[in-house]
């Protein structure tokens, strides 16, 4: 069985564009949540979101390309550009039937769907644009990546709500492990900050309404948490067969050693700690590591009442009394919840935590909740002690629909 290396990282988040910028903000505990400015929010209870303000599509695409690509594809391509450049891959290494794309998205081309629906319903004219379908279909982003970077192997879009990005990376790692691909562009992307989506989340009463100040709204694991903050973004990694990557002298950030995926099979939105715990134990088994080897848990940590309590319970079921000794942090406290991108961006944060030996914090923690009583790294980012290095970590992602995905990462060992 082949080993899987992470050799390139591309990330676009509300706190910035690119690995260095996003990581620096995470270590500083900086929030990327701000006021929504591009549409009227006066009928909403929430007027804040994680908007990627530093992402300038005009820097990456000409006017014609912009008219053809939904924002979600723009984010995906731009992040892929960064990841492949960083991995030092030449065109020949991507232009191959041994290279593919596995991408997660929860909302696909939602902005375009709303635009075309609006034209249809408001103007009453059914046929408004020949671009409507290719621009808004869920697999547009992964297909646009393959068209631009010429990857000819598997090209698959996975949509499992908030765990889409994690499932994509897990599935891609298994394709490499079992020899179905040499290298994969994998990750997640979403651009769901739209009037219709914001209104729909409002009706579910799961968004934080702590609008003032925006950067303090998202409070994972804190007793006074009141919901998640919607965000957008892209997280893309280049995964490669470890030996191939090592032999070409690529920088190896980390090794993906395990992946667990489960379904709660209980309720469409209500989380079940049993399904979540099993995703963790299956990931550990897949990695061949024992629970006591895990040094850090990057939590799903949405800041909804239900998720944070359920995730805490699931962690305790897997790790027993040692759960209290493992640092658990939620970077959603800073970046918000970018849906299908979240699992991939959090995977990247976990990779960088191992690379830099620093655990990013959970910010905005204010009040202890008896149901959430683990070490959530609330005092700011934490340097791993030399005596207890950060070697092995997991990243949790749990999606609506009861779709759970857990990834296990390890510091690279040649």
């Amino acid at each position, binding site marked *: 069985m082949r080993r899987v290396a992470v050799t390139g990282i591309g990330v676009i988040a509300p706190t910035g564009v690119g690995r260095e910028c996003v990581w620096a903000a995470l270590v500083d505990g900086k929030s990327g949540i701000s006021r929504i400015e591009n549409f009227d929010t006066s009928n909403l209870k929430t007027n804040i979101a994680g908007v990627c303000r530093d992402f300038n599509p005009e820097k990456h695409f000409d006017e014609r390309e912009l*008219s053809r690509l939904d924002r979600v594809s723009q984010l995906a391509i731009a992040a892929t550009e960064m990841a492949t450049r960083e991995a030092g891959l030449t065109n020949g290494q991507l232009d191959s039937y041994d290279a593919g794309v596995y991408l997660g998205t929860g909302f696909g081309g939602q902005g375009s769907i709303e635009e075309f629906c609006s034209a249809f319903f408001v103007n009453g004219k059914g046929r408004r644009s020949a671009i409507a379908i290719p621009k808004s279909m869920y697999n547009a982003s992964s297909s646009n990546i393959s068209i631009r970077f010429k990857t000819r192997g598997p090209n698959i879009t996975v949509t499992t709500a908030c765990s889409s990005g994690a499932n994509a990376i897990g599935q891609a790692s298994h394709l490499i492990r079992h020899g179905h691909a040499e290298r994969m562009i994998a990750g997640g992307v979403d651009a769901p900050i739209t009037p219709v989506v914001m209104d729909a989340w409002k009706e579910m009463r799961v968004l934080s309404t702590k609008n003032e100040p925006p950067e303090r709204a998202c409070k994972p694991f804190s007793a006074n948490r009141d919901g998640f903050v919607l965000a957008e973004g892209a997280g893309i990694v280049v995964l490669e067969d470890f030996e191939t990557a090592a032999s070409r002298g690529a920088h190896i950030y980390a090794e993906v050693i395990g992946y667990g995926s489960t379904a709660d099979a209980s309720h469409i939105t209500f989380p079940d700690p049993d399904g979540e715990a099993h995703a963790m134990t299956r990931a550990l088994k897949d990695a061949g590591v024992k629970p006591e080897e895990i040094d850090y848990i990057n939590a799903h940590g949405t800041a909804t009442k239900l998720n944070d309590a359920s995730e805490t319970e699931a962690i305790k079921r897997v790790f027993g009394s040692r759960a209290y000794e493992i640092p658990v942090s939620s970077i959603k406290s800073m970046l918000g919840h970018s849906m299908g991108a979240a699992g991939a961006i959090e995977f990247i944060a976990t990779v960088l935590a191992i690379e830099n030996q620093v655990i990013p914090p959970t910010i905005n923690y204010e009040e202890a909740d008896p149901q959430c009583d683990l070490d959530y790294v609330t005092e700011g980012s934490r340097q791993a002690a030399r005596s207890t290095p950060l070697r092995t970590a997991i990243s949790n992602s749990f999606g609506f629909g009861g779709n759970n995905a857990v990834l296990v990462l390890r510091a690279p060992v040649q």
Partner: protein
Amino acid sequence: MTREAVESIEDAVKGIIVAELRVDRSQLGPTTHLMKDLGADSLDALNIALRLEERFRIKIPDDAIPKFLTVGDIIHGVNEHLAVQ
């Protein structure tokens, strides 16, 4: 049709091509080929047809669209459709 009307049709057609393909108006001559010279694809051709239908209140049959290869073809085609209606 008056000379002014012919010119205004040509002007409107060029305006639609410029807007859809994001090209400069100076690139458009009667023999300028949408695909070969301006990089358009079949989706662009469909959108141009759609905008022509809206602008001139005509119905362009499906089998006419593949014949719209040059700027001149389109202007000629629109004139024909307008003449029929």
